[in-house]
């Protein structure tokens, strides 16, 4: 939020001239009939995407030459806002003259870029980017029908943000590499969640399979686990002072198990760690002797000194061991 965000609105002013022109006079709207396609020896494909009850619907017509899979003619019909109509029109324009296999590669971003007046200025405001996604989906649907395969088979990866076409894999990688902590940071790095915002969290314009908040939480959890595992692996050699309480106790136990406990057991005794407390600059480790150690004279002198110096050497020079 800042000065430029204070006055919202002006939605339509942010449309490019191309979007405005195509909304007012779509060039490629219309239908192709079975008869027309058959007369040319071509195959007609008609695919729907969206529904009136969703607020957006598009019907795409392809006349395809079965010899070379070339889309020789294309048309559309659309129930939708200006962006939906203009992007459907541009999508049809981009399909025409391509083979079905080539058309499948057209994305909503290609459509949006083609609608720009100047290369650097988006054709529509962020929240309308969503309306161009349908143009992409309906191509997949038509291609699937023509090839006799499922439309989803054209998706190589799981797309979390359809507006910016950001995949799950990319998001996980970017969060990890850049140590991202908030959804806003994810949007800054990847543009995901910067358009219709449906993919940020449940309850938006559309229901999604994956949400940025969940992906972020999962990756952060994974990162924490990895960090802890690394600390645990580093164990004795790690920075004792930087460890969490649980990590410290584990490290102390590891040192005691390795270098102390066996000697106590040999003498019929044992010990346990009761507590670890920061007593700046010291770290106090409270222990309790068990079995024979309780009555052993050296438990407060030689044995104690041996335990303390071992822990000091292996973990931190600031350790003090206090028997209770």
């Amino acid at each position, binding site marked *: 939020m800042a000065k430029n965000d204070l006055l919202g609105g002006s939605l339509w002013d942010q449309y490019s001239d191309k979007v405005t022109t195509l909304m007012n006079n779509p060039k490629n709207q219309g239908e192709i009939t079975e008869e027309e396609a058959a007369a040319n020896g071509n195959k007609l494909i008609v695919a729907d995407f969206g529904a009136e009850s*969703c*607020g957006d619907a598009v*019907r795409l017509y392809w006349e395809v030459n079965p010899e070379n899979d070339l889309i020789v003619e294309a048309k*559309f019909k659309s*129930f939708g806002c200006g962006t939906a109509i203009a992007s459907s029109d541009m999508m049809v324009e981009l399909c025409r003259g391509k083979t079905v296999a080539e058309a499948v590669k057209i994305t909503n971003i290609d459509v949006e870029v083609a609608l720009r007046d100047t290369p650097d200025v988006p054709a529509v405001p962020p929240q309308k980017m969503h309306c161009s996604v349908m143009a992409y989906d309906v191509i997949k649907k038509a291609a699937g029908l023509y090839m006799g395969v499922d439309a989803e088979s054209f998706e190589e990866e799981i797309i979390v943000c359809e507006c910016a076409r950001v995949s799950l894999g990319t998001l996980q990688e970017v969060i990890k590499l850049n140590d991202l902590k908030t959804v806003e940071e994810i949007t800054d790095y990847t543009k995901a969640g910067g358009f219709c915002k449906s993919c940020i969290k449940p309850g938006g314009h559309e229901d999604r399979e994956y949400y940025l908040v969940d992906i972020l939480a999962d990756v952060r959890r994974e990162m924490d686990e990895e960090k802890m595992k690394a600390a645990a692996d580093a164990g004795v050699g790690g920075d004792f002072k930087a460890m969490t309480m649980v990590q410290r106790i584990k490290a102390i136990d590891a040192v005691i198990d390795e270098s102390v406990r066996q000697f106590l057991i040999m003498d019929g005794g044992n010990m346990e760690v009761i507590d670890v407390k920061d007593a700046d600059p010291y770290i106090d480790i409270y222990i309790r002797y068990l079995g024979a150690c309780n009555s052993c004279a050296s438990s407060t002198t030689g044995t104690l000194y041996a335990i303390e110096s071992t822990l000091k050497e292996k973990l931190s020079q600031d350790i003090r061991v206090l028997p209770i």
Partner: protein
Amino acid sequence: MQVYMDNNATTMVDPQVVEVMLPYFSEKYGNPNSIHKFGTASHPAIAKAIDQMYTGINAADSDDIIFTSSATESNNWLLQSTWVDQILNGDKNHIVTTEVEHPSVLSTCKFLEDQGVKVTYLPVNDQGIVEAHTVKSFITDKTALVSIMWASNETGMIFPIKEIGEICKEKGVLFHSDAVQAVGKIPVDVQDVHIDFMSMSAHKFHGPKGVGALYIKDSQKLSPLMHGGEQMNGRRSGTLNVPYIVGMGEAMELATKDIESKMTAIRTKRDRLEDALLELSDTFTIGERDNRTPNTLLISIRGVEGEGMLWDLNNGLIGASTGSACASEDLEANSVMLAIGADHELAHTGIRLSLSRFTTDEEVDYVIDHFKAAVLRLRGISSSYAKVQPTPGGEATECAI
């Protein structure tokens, strides 16, 4: 010609209102709290505005009408202070409202829920209104407040405020109504109905933006939202916005004086417009006409998406409104239309036209022509009216939202 048919969003300030406001900017600009003559120079005009407000809604002298910055402030004040007075410092924990209130009520209720208040959001029937018996069944002995709008901004439907008021009186529960869409459009008489609090906004009845009011029956307790000076008898601090208060009073008088004949005139135009638009096939309007504010119609046009329709109307220099998902900045479907629940499509094909006492017959004719032309053009593009059906397997799956 350009035609403004979005009077439920805001209205033109009546030139007569502007005229009475003007002296209070650069001529009589004193602070009414000052004791010198510069300060007191505005007192007669403020007193007149107060009288105009009391007369406009038939308030008793024992009641308070407190000027605020907006109905949003009035709603926030009432809700937040009820929370403080009745819940934090009382033994109540519950507020009853509806699913279709203005965001200034709904968002404040959500905020109060975050603070631990229980809030019941009542559903509306297929007419878009809450029924009185529904209200009754949700009031408990812990209910602090019932807050229900007088008329809907989206549909114009008028809620059974008198019946609900009686129920609240009987149950001993405070009753508030956001009457923003009712005051100045239909008769509002606070002595005819039992009502404790009522919010109003000047710019909905040809007054200026930035001034509203809260009616408080019998000057009853309600902690202030704005703390500071002693203005409005300590109920609402902030230097009195003299020109706007004067303007609101004048606008109130102009809107409510002889309201029946004004209503008839607007209703005649609205009904003519509605009848003409309903000549289009596959259209319907929401709510019984007789139970609507006389200036409002909400029409669903099959196969024409709301924002697309607004676009074409705008090209014809007509200002209208829609509840369509696509048209709002946040892309959310219209909650009022969804709450009506009759048809999901409506939330995307609804167009609201709201007239005013300044709307002319020529304007109505112009809108009829342009509206019909826009529907014709957009249905020509619409997939809903396409003839060639999808290749088997190419049908769309139903909406998952």
